[in-house]
């Protein structure tokens, strides 16, 4: 596909919009051709999808905030809801042991993606962007895990890590000739040892994340005007200088996308730990705690909402940053 963006053709700001005549009562020549029926059509074309989106996403998001200040066990009507101020948050921070480990795991996940997996994906993109023989094959192989669901990645992690039947321990046993590597009791239980299992999961999740970032970044690199690189080379810049001083700054828009994708993916992480052991025994994440609160026996709605609000607070910064950067360009 043609990945050179070109300036988006935005209508001149002075043209107003189809709805401007309704709002300002000033008739503008360009839009007088829209009949009442046309305006109704346009209203429905936007209105129905917008209603679905707001009703199923923004309404519950606001609901989470409101409910986080209440106590309600979900039984009985909405009139049973009692406002209790910040007590859910106090309980969350001081009386709920799984919270801080999960919070910490989310931060570690974010750090590993941000400082290891994402840079590795960018590095692969920079290398494969050169006219290397077989670049399509390398790209396909690195990208393959991205089309798999994280649930399947969890299954494949089991194939690699399981103590008696997994690749790693069987490989070690074959190389060393020592049966202790696969004997239960002495074999390393990669997914069953707290701490170690989280590192193992991060390796598996990175397996998928690197290819994702690589493809996003490759598309960005292809859109960089080659004359920039030529000019840098003529000025005597080295390959590294050309990338960091010329190409990287030009790629600011794609850098924003990569950054936000990385943060949001880290906060959404759920499937892989849930399929391995329901997110217990060292694999806790905020997303798992919130989900278990709903699916578990005693659903504490206000408490679950408070955890959801924590997640919202962490994610709202990157989202606003992303909107400001991309939509800001749009508005120009």
């Amino acid at each position, binding site marked *: 596909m043609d990945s050179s963006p070109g300036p988006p053709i935005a209508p001149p700001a002075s043209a107003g919009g189809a709805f401007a005549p309704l709002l300002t009562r000033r008739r503008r020549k360009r839009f007088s051709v829209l009949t009442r029926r046309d305006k109704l059509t346009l209203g429905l074309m936007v209105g129905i999808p917008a209603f679905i989106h707001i009703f199923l996403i923004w309404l519950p998001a606001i609901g989470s905030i409101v409910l986080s200040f209440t106590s309600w066990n979900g039984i009985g009507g909405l009139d049973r809801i009692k406002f209790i101020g910040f007590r859910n948050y106090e309980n969350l921070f001081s009386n709920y042991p799984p919270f801080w480990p999960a919070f910490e795991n989310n931060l570690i996940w974010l750090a590993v993606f941000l400082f290891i997996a994402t840079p590795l994906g960018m590095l692969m993109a920079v290398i494969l962007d050169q*006219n290397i023989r077989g670049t399509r094959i390398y790209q396909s192989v690195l990208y393959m895990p991205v089309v*798999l669901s994280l649930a399947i990645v969890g299954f494949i992690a089991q194939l690699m890590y399981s103590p008696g039947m997994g690749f790693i321990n069987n490989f070690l046993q074959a190389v060393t000739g020592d049966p202790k590597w696969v004997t239960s009791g002495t074999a390393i239980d990669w997914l069953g040892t707290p701490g170690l299992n989280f590192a193992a999961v991060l390796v598996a999740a990175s397996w998928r994340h690197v290819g994702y970032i690589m493809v996003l970044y490759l598309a960005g690199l292809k859109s960089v005007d080659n004359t920039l690189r030529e000019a840098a080379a003529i000025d005597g810049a*080295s390959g590294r200088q*050309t990338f960091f001083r010329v190409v990287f700054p030009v790629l600011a828009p794609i850098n924003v996308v990569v950054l936000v994708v990385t943060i949001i993916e880290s906060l959404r992480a759920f499937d892989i730990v849930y399929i391995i052991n329901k997110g217990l025994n060292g694999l806790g994440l905020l997303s798992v705690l*919130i989900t278990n609160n709903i699916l578990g026996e005693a659903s504490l709605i206000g408490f679950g909402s408070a955890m959801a609000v924590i997640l*919202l607070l962490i994610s709202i910064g990157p989202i606003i940053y992303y909107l400001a950067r991309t939509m800001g360009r749009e508005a120009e």
Partner: protein
Amino acid sequence: MTATSAAVGAREVVTGRRRRPHYLTHAFLIFMSLLWFLPLGWAVYTSLRPYGDTGGNSRGYFSVGGAYNLNNFFNAWNQADLPLHFLQTILVVVPALILILFFSSMVAVAVSRYSFRLNLAMLMLFTAGNLLPQQVVIVPLFRLYLALPMFAPLSDNGMWYDQLFGIVMIHLAFQLGFCTFVLSNYFKQVPKEINEAAVVDGATVWRTYRSVLLPLARPALAALATLEFTWIYNDFFWGILLLRSGDKFPVTSALNNLSGQFFTDNNLLAAGSLIVALPTLIVYFALQKHFVAGLTLGSTKG
């Protein structure tokens, strides 16, 4: 050899890029590719071997020899009720895809070609909603799904909860954001004269959308369909949260109930994983261009 290296040399001159020694780059790339291919290659190898030849006190998993056959695939297919779950997947993916592309193309046309001010507000709302982690909304959403009524045949219990209809709706709500964003950028590049010509011909807004703009967007729609198919097919979370009846689970969510059964037999686990992964791998290899285009449309344009 000489011809190729001459060509490479010529390209170097043209692009003016400095090159590292080729063999080092290639060694690194081959190493990375082998490392990346290993888990899937291992899954294929393990899936072809009977448990009796690899597990227990036999020759072990890191070995050659013994039988190679497709029995694990047949066993996984039957034991895990995969045909049933694939059917549920189809019942979710097809309506969801159609509705997502239909609704998002309507919003994209309306906001990108008729009202610029609304465009920005709508895009912000949709994009922000699309980026929210799902868990932010699920506590009230779960209650909503228990409370909202729905008639047969879309619901067999009168609720949104435990219904494929409900799964379709939540995919629709979340994916509208991304698709609207991509399509409205696409429509912005279509010359405005096309709208004006349609108006001169007396076409209504609906007819302009249906017969003029929508056909023009076919490449973008194809790219989005490929990408959205993979995302919806791969969804694990919504099925787990919003369904209860085991026989209604789409195939990816159904993996959750299979883990206990499969984790005692890695050969069966490998075969089951590959069967479930196959549709997305096929779509990826057959429609690679569309797939990558869809992913990058949203990130490089606009």
